[in-house]
């Protein structure tokens, strides 16, 4: 999202909020997975993949052992492929351990309709059969259209459908922040 003049909307999470939320998510993941052994974080590109990397770094810093991190592109599994010209594909990286029989946590920036996660589950199943799949998101904004929920949520943000949630990350946007914008 580029702002030509005055940025619309307002910041709901700043850089330190995001960092604290990710730290809490890391602790929750370790607690609920009993030490995070056998864990693989699979981020959904673009921003979900960066968040997965950050979460992986935090978990391995706490645990003192490396965490397996990958990325899974969902483009070809979307249910609205035909609604726009062909979209560019993004990289899928499967860690050397694979995902077979592992505890996989999908990571994304915003959970909205749930359709992206449905696509991610389909994409994931092409690469193996995890023992368990969970979902971690930085922001849950509600308005689900499928029976999907997140296991780990950084921040619940009640929104109206006409609003837009914009997650900016240093890796892509030069700044860490989450904004709510009114659709013009």
């Amino acid at each position: 999202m580029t702002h030509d003049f005055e940025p619309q909307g307002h910041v709901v999470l700043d850089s330190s909020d995001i960092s604290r939320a990710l730290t809490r998510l890391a602790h929750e993941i370790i607690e609920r997975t009993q030490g995070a052994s056998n864990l693989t974080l699979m981020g959904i590109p673009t921003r979900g993949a960066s968040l997965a990397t950050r979460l992986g770094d935090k978990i391995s810093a706490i645990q003192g052992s490396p965490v397996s991190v990958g990325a899974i592109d969902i483009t070809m599994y979307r249910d609205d492929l035909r609604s726009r010209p062909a979209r560019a594909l993004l990289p899928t990286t499967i860690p050397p351990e694979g995902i077979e029989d592992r505890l996989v946590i999908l990571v994304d920036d915003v959970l909205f309709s749930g359709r992206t996660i449905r696509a991610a589950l389909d994409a994931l199943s092409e690469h193996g059969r995890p023992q368990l799949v969970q979902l971690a998101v930085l922001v849950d904004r509600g308005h689900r259209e499928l029976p999907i929920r997140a296991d780990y949520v950084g921040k619940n943000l009640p929104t109206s459908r006409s609003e837009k949630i914009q997650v900016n990350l240093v890796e892509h946007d030069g700044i860490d922040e989450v904004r709510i914008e009114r659709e013009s």
Partner: protein
Amino acid sequence: MKHLLSAADLSYEDAILVLDTAKQLAAATEQGVGKLPPLRGRTVVNLFYEDSTRTRISFEAAAKRLSADVINFSAKGSSVSKGESLKDTALTLEAMGADAVVIRHNSSGAPHRLANAGWISGGVVNAGDGTHEHPTQALLDAFTLRNHLRNGEGDLKGVNVTIVGDVLHSRVARSNVLLLNTLGAKVRLVAPPTLLPYGVEDWDCEVSYDLDASLEGSDAVMMLRVQRERMNAAYFPNAHEYSNRYGLNVTRMNRLSESAVVMHPGPMNRGMEISADVADSQRSVIVEQVANGVSVRMAVLYLILGGSESM
């Protein structure tokens, strides 16, 4: 992207998009995903008026890996051998609901006609027309070059490619000159004067008659097949002499720089334009070209058929 008729239709951004898409699709194949879903419910027709094994199989494999339905239509043993025109065949395919037609034809310009005559509504991919163009071959060559010389990223700025042999009958050479220029590479054509097309001096490349003088400084040497089936006159005295002057043998290969690769679009005439030990050497990326062909054709089909139809 609605059609792919000529390598000249591809802008720099288009070409990079095809190569980057092919890279992700190749990675999926490498990761063991044999089948991808984006073309489910789409029908691709392979309309082949000329003999071809690798290109047809390559397009068929590409379409099937993307879950498209594939109909193979070859002129031999079909209504075409009873005298059906391209137009009537096209109308038939349209009535059957073809979403894209991959066409190989012995007449230059047939894909263009098929795409623009209003006979069919789907996309058209040129899989080789006469002595004109073969854009997916150029794309797979660029993809192979990029993997070897540019670590699989970006363009081919500053890469020196030498294309050797029967340029006159080669649609591969024409498409390659166009695409390689778009991607920033420098192309030199090497051939006997009789095997250079009329007007080659207007192509965006250097032309030489001397292979030995062109080896040094080449990052890639692309050997073209001597297309005897298209030769209706004596273009060179005999095979032995051609091979002596324009064939790639080990002595010549050893004069190439350490990192240079040897390419051939296939099928090869071993012993003619390329010696068997060169074809089977470490520097030869010929088998890789075939594998890359499937990835690149998947990318083209995905970009033409993978989104909404109106563009």
